């Protein structure tokens, strides 16, 4: 009798066992965010030159990077080497630019500037501290050797990225 009961119990447990997919959900909030605080503006001091230098009537772009978790990210800024929109240009454009730390929320971030790595038109910063860092991006375009730029609207893009280390 005991055996029979045990068998029934096993059968019951066998029928109640089912395959169930039980998901585990998680949301990853960004710990690094990039904000454009000031849009850059090209000044036009000479017929062949566009520049963001304030002395030449331009405005440097200011980009803020907020890092919530220290030493997990690096940021990469690429200043322009082409116009995203412009009148038709028949000659080459010579591009220059730079990115620098302009303001910090933690004094130690001031060391980012000395430790930055620059290659081609890209500048990388190692974000070792949590907080906000303001970066200033300069851009300058020179058309031909000294050829006058055609009249019209010119737009160039800065690419700012936050990359996990």
């Amino acid at each position, binding site marked *: 009798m005991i055996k029979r009961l045990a068998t029934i119990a096993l059968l019951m447990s066998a029928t109640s066992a089912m395959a169930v997919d039980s998901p585990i959900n998680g949301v990853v909030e960004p710990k690094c965010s990039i904000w454009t605080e000031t849009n850059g503006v090209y000044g036009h001091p000479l017929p062949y030159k566009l520049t963001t230098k304030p002395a030449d009537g331009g405005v440097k772009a200011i980009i803020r990077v907020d890092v919530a978790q220290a030493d997990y990210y690096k940021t990469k800024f690429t200043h322009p080497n082409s116009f995203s929109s412009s009148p038709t240009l028949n000659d080459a454009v010579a591009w220059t630019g730079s990115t620098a*730390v*302009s*303001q*910090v*929320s*933690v*004094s*130690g*971030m*001031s*060391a980012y*500037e*000395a430790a930055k790595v620059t290659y081609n038109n890209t500048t990388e910063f190692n974000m070792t501290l949590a907080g*906000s860092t*303001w970066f200033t991006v300069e851009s300058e375009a020179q058309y031909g050797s000294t050829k006058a730029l055609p009249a019209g609207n010119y737009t160039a893009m800065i690419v700012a990225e936050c990359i996990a280390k």
Partner: protein
Amino acid sequence: MLGLLVGFSWPSYLSSELLYGRTDNVAKYVRTWDMTKVLPPDAGLEVQGIFHRYTITKESSADATVSIVNKNANGSGNIYERHDNWNQLPSNTKIGFDVVTPSLGKRWGDGSIDVTGEATLSDVIVAYNYRFDPCFIPLSDPTCPDYESALYQYLLDNDLINNEPDIDDPYYDEWVQYQLDIKAEQKEEEEAKKEKEAEEAEEELKMERALSVAGAAEQIANPMQQLAMMQQLVSTGTLDSYYGATIEGGTYEDAIELKDAEIKDNTRALRNLAQDKLHRTIVRSQYDK
């Protein structure tokens, strides 16, 4: 007076909102400042954050520390302090905002920003974020939620409920208004009372009228009264059309007319009658034996 007390004890559902603000740049011209001249004088004001921005100029190899401090006005030490270490760091501009546990502005003593070491500061901005309840003192504004109860308490504490205060009293106008309100309230109560009395009188009159109708019914049941009423009705011609009608004399012929020439017997009725007779005979036979 009891009604008045109850009236004042009713909660008011107006709500006061906290107001938030930020001081001007307290370090625009100086490196130390007096907080009593920086913060608004509002009672209950609390400091809840400090914003700072400065540019430090130095050699990268030099050591320097920038300190922003507020002394504790109610004791020794500092109620707030921040020390930025710029040792071996290049020049830069620093921006920061420190959130602090809100504390009364009166506790915040003299503030300062200073740099030690081989460095100079420029473009310094220090500003305090604060908040306060405009109804922290309910008597400060008649629109405050607890204004009425606070005013009543003030008048009570200063024995001014029934005594006129000095005209220089800060709440003299409020006292006048208070007295006017009392009079208005009393007038309203009196009017309400009069209205209620008038309504009650009207109800009573209606009842009397109903009762007077009931008395008339008794009078109608009296034969003498009925006779008098009939005489009155006839005299007014109301029943004249019935009593005064005349019928012409002569012969009035029967007007019945039978249209069918033959009337058939009702066989069903006859059958029933026969059955009734048979039944009676059967019943009767029981007694005849």
